[in-house]
């Protein structure tokens, strides 16, 4: 068998280099996992037995939510019955996790009474009122926020109707529910707001900005809310298991920014559930008439849907049914937390639409829209593990991993070169080529499948250096064995390969079986590790067959081994041995 192997060799090298160049040209680069670039990961486990379809539905809902907050490369997978959500690059951990994990049914409950947080209320002085009225509805709270503690408190007390902990947005918001505004209507929200806030002492400002019907301020509201604030007691929050649709409950509301509890509400039995909403038509939009962000809600047809809504609205509008809805406000409750408690300023006797208005920032409106829209997941999840990696720590880990890999590689390279000389060079080139291939594949996986390279993957690759080099060592040692036995390199190079390759395949298959099983059966980082270990093992086989063998055969056919034995680190021994034998 006297094959030159040159065509194979050249083809392989060209293919590998071509792939690497192609990937470079396409501008692809490996997608870094969140432990390398920072971000948030959470493992969600269903609290009850859930079938595959429910989980898939949940994943779809979670994906929608994640897409809605604009994460660049979200990775949402089902792993062994758990949903694993990875949000690399996300800065605001709580906001993201809250959106991903909020599982409860959305409920609209009438507000019976409001209790401001006494801790926050205490420092509020008359200056705050002035501040609010001065700012008006379009107050830019970001400017007011970081100045002094009293201002911060003021902001949080004023914005009683905001959703649960979504830090990141800040606004003193006053929200109202109204029918869908007609485009030509031009209410003057800022003035109404200013009036309202100046009337209400500490907090309760509920203003109405919605459509033609609301050109007049609803005077009934203001006294109602001020009455609420007179009651400063602080009732305990209803425990989760007592939170049923029929019960009268106490629910908290949190400030978006500070995550401090701002209000507790006494809420009546549920009037409308999230099931009545058309999810696709619940969204944040910009009211073109006044440039305000609002949240549009659309109800499904039918008595059990929009019908319940109309009843609720009728009861709450101007608190016309004080038994049911004494304050005229309707709270949206998600997961035991009040996300918004707007007042109702229409009876909604016709149409399926409503809007929630207020001085929303875009972010706030979108957050609220998403919560209303994707309120219910088909199964309830609990967080099994959350991981929040800062970008700095991620970058440091990547740097350390790469540095460790390179230095380890350099030491191995020196050792292999000293020991095997020219054959060592073959081993290193082979390693380099399979690395190139691996890099191209990782980049491709990242680009097309969204598969990220995690720290455990990096470790898998570093470990595979040993395995890859080993294939070469097995082969070289076999050649050496043959040559000690008296063969020349030319004949042993071909022959030894068969023995060596069968060993390599057998051993690599064990690694592959392990990697495949791990990939299949495990969760999270172990999976990533298994993927890259398996990949690099496969590439090792490819490189052994298409590069190592033709390269060594080619080298041996030059006769260099016979002329310069020391260059291969193999034949040297023979001379000595001969000398010894004759001595």
């Amino acid at each position, binding site marked *: 068998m006297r094959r030159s192997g040159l065509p194979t060799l050249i083809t392989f090298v060209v293919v590998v280099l071509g792939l690497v160049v192609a990937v470079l040209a396409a501008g692809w680069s490996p997608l870094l996992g969140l432990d390398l670039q920072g971000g948030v990961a959470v493992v969600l486990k269903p609290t009850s037995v859930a079938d595959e379809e429910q989980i898939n539905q949940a994943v779809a809902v979670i994906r929608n939510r994640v897409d809605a907050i604009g994460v660049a490369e979200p990775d949402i997978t089902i792993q062994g019955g758990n949903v694993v959500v990875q949000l690399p690059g996300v800065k605001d951990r709580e906001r993201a996790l809250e959106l991903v994990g909020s599982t409860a049914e959305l409920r609209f409950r009438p507000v019976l009474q409001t209790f401001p947080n006494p801790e926050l209320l205490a420092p509020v002085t008359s200056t705050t009122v002035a501040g609010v009225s001065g700012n008006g509805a379009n107050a830019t709270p970001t400017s007011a926020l970081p100045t002094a503690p009293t201002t911060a408190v003021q902001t949080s007390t004023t914005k009683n109707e905001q959703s649960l902990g979504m830090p990141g947005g800040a606004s003193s918001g006053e929200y109202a529910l109204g029918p869908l505004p007609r485009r030509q209507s031009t209410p003057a929200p800022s003035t109404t707001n200013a009036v309202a806030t100046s009337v209400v002492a500490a907090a309760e400002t509920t203003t109405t900005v919605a459509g033609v019907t609301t050109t007049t301020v609803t005077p009934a509201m203001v006294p109602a809310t001020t009455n609420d604030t007179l009651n400063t007691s602080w009732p305990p929050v209803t425990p989760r298991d007592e939170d049923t649709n029929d019960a009268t409950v106490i629910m908290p509301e949190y400030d978006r920014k500070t995550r401090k509890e701002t209000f507790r509400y006494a809420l009546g039995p549920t009037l409308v559930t999230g099931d009545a909403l058309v999810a696709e038509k619940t969204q944040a939009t910009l009211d073109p008439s006044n440039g305000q962000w609002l949240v549009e809600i659309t109800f499904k047809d039918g008595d059990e849907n929009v019908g319940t809504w109309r009843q609720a609205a009728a009861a709450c509008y101007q608190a016309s049914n004080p038994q049911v809805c004494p304050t005229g406000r309707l709270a949206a409750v998600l997961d035991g937390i009040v996300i918004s408690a707007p007042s109702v300023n229409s009876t909604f006797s016709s149409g399926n639409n409503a809007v929630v208005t207020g001085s929303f920032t875009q972010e706030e409106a979108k957050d609220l829209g998403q919560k209303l829209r994707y309120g219910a997941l088909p199964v309830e999840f609990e*967080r099994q593990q959350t*991981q929040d990696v*800062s970008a700095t720590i991620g970058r440091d880990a990547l740097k350390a991993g790469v540095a460790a890999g390179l230095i380890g590689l350099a030491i191995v390279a020196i*050792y292999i070169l000293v020991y095997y000389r020219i054959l060592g060079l073959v081993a290193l080139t082979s390693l380099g080529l399979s690395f190139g291939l691996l890099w191209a594949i990782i980049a491709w996986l990242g680009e097309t499948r969204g598969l990220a390279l995690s720290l455990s993957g990096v470790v898998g690759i*570093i470990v595979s250096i040993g395995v890859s*080099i080993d294939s070469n060592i097995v082969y070289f040692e076999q050649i*050496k064995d*043959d040559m000690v036995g008296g063969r020349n390199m030319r004949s042993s190079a071909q022959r030894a390969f068969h023995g060596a390759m069968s060993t390599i395949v057998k051993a690599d*298959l064990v690694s592959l079986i392990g990697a495949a099983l791990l990939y299949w059966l495990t969760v999270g980082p172990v999976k990533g590790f298994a993927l890259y270990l398996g990949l690099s093992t496969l590439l090792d086989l490819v490189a052994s067959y298409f590069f190592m063998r033709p390269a060594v055969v080619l080298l041996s056919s030059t006769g260099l081994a016979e002329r310069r034995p020391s260059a291969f680190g193999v034949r040297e021994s023979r001379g000595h041995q001969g000398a010894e034998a004759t001595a």
Partner: protein
Amino acid sequence: MSGLRRLFRGENNYDFVRLWRYGLTASAALVVLSIGLLSLRGLNLGLDFEGGTAWDVPTSSLSVSETRDVLRPLGVAESKIQTVGTDLVRVQSGTTDPAKIQEVREALAGAAEIDSDQIAVTTVGPSWGNEISNKAIRALVLFFIAVSLYITFALRDWRMAVGALVAVVHDIVISVGVYSLLQIEVTPATVIAFLTILGFSLYDTVVVYARIKDNTPMVSVAGRTTYTDMASLSLNQVLMRSINTSLTAVLPVLSILVVGSWIFGATTLEEFGIALLVGLLVGVYSSIFVATPIVAYLNERSPAYRTVRERLASKATGETRRVESRKATVPTEVASDAQAAGSGAASGKKLPAGYSASHPPRPRKNKRR
């Protein structure tokens, strides 16, 4: 000629049969010790197995006691606080309450005078540890079954599957023992590293077994040596490869440990590195000193190889035992000559590559039979 030099030239011949005795004794002692340690001291299970929250604060200005002072008013002063590397403080606590977690985060950020975004937070529910352990154990059991089947078929010898499994279990027990002894924290990274070790240990064992398999015709066909001696010879033949492979595998791992964790202070890399280092060393050792003697022992009891041994024992005195010792002293010319004769003599069954060359037929003085 120094031992190293002989190794380099592939002329080594160690009497592994004798070494195995020491090796097996040492292994048995280590395994017993590990199990004892494990039952006495247990393992230092990390956050992921216990549940709770960890905050990683990138700072070099905070000391452990300062950190504790910061945390005291928050009611989490009993937290485990440690410095990792030079510029990381890690706080661990049993709490999983989001509000509390945020509070601690802010407090730590304030004390370290950094942005709270820079603090990495990991929260683990109490049942997560069971979940991953159960999954890992299930994967492990299936892995063992698959590998046993694979080795049985690929090497056509179920005894090798037994040897490989015993060696792997030996590796796990000793690695776990080291973790128990040093009370190093067990994390998911550790689990991954252990799984790698299993793979590597099996990989190494299979390389040795493949050589033994290749040499088996020496016993089964030529009938010139006992299985045990053949196994010892095979080990001598793959020894240099084992050493080189172990070095090339250990060097990057050492690099992970030294460069990655000690210089850069990347904690996850440290977790990987320690487990990998321990496991790699034990894994290489076990394929030579545990896996091989077990196979030799089992095969010596199989009828076919027993007859060979009995025949050889009746024919020769102690000399036959160390066939491989001649390997180094055979003049090359003789080896090449004999090689042709040897392959011819292989009565129909093709002798494997490397057999005749690396193990030249017996020298003349044995021709007296």
